[in-house]
């Protein structure tokens, strides 16, 4: 086992843009003074999540949905291993991480769309409540995800937060991805910037 490149640039950049966008959107949720900041940061989450969908089909090996979307049986097996303090090591996302991705992408898109509709006064009260309920659900999934990341990091002796920054994880040389896909990352940045600009205007 050695350090190999596993996460491409769009995965890492998208992950941290979503983190930043969600934190800012959550902190500005109750403010009219920061309403525009709230809309733009929520828009960043929505833009990253919509970019991630095609990237789940055309991205590098471990970014693809086929690599990590698993059924409830695999999730239960992984959780059981985690509880016995000996979780199975996955080069890419483990089944729990895969579920977190699907849930957070779905919630990021739905929360963003509901928020956009509220911002443009398309909905009534129920849409406001829906937006808040979806965001609170998203926070709940994020907390579970963080607990999973912390316990996975401790049990594997592998700092998963750092792997999401550097892209390097433990694996065999032949399991590495050949390119970090920087051009796609530039496209992601352009897409996010365009979405932010569009919302702000």
């Amino acid at each position, binding site marked *: 086992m050695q350090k190999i490149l596993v996460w491409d640039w769009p995965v890492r950049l998208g992950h941290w843009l979503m983190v930043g966008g969600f934190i800012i959107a959550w902190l500005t949720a109750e403010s*009219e003074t920061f*309403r*525009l900041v709230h*809309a733009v940061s929520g828009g960043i989450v929505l833009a990253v999540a919509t970019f991630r969908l095609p990237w789940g089909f055309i991205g590098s090996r471990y970014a693809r949905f086929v690599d990590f979307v698993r059924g409830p049986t695999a999730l239960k097996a992984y959780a059981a291993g985690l509880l016995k303090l000996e979780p199975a090591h996955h080069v890419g996302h483990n089944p729990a991480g895969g579920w977190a991705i699907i849930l957070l992408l779905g919630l990021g898109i739905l929360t963003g769309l509901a928020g956009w509709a509220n*911002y443009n*006064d398309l909905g*009534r*009260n129920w849409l406001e409540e829906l937006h808040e309920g979806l965001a609170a659900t998203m926070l709940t999934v994020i907390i579970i995800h963080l607990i999973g990341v912390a316990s996975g990091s401790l049990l594997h002796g592998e700092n998963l937060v750092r792997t999401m920054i550097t892209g390097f994880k433990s694996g065999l040389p032949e399991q590495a991805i050949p390119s970090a896909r920087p051009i796609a990352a530039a496209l992601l940045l352009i897409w996010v910037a365009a979405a932010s600009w569009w919302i702000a205007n």
Partner: protein
Amino acid sequence: MRALTALCLLLTSFASQAETPQQIRQSYASEAAAQQAGFTASAQRGEALFRQRFSNNDKMPSCTSCHTDSPVKPGQHAITGKAVRPLAVSANAERFTDLAKTEKWFGRNCKEVIGRACTPAEKSDFVAYMSEVR
């Protein structure tokens, strides 16, 4: 059939038009009367609160910053420029028909504009003004 009726009642209770502005005003007035004997809501005091300028937030120093000088007209958000539906009940029948929503927005906006929570007396006066202004 009884299950259906129960379901309908349940759905109606979710459909946010649960109260009237009079009930909401009264609920705040009762709360205020508990602290201050003989309290009755005053639309005049409500209007004064609506127009008062506070020194808490220079981007939105008063209610009128977004809701304009006339509550029967649509407002405009001070930061985003987005339209805000009129506050006055005579211009917007949806206003003050849901106590939870009213509480939520008094909670947010009083804190942000005045810098503190509004008192039940202030809320009662405010709802009185918005119910009567034409």
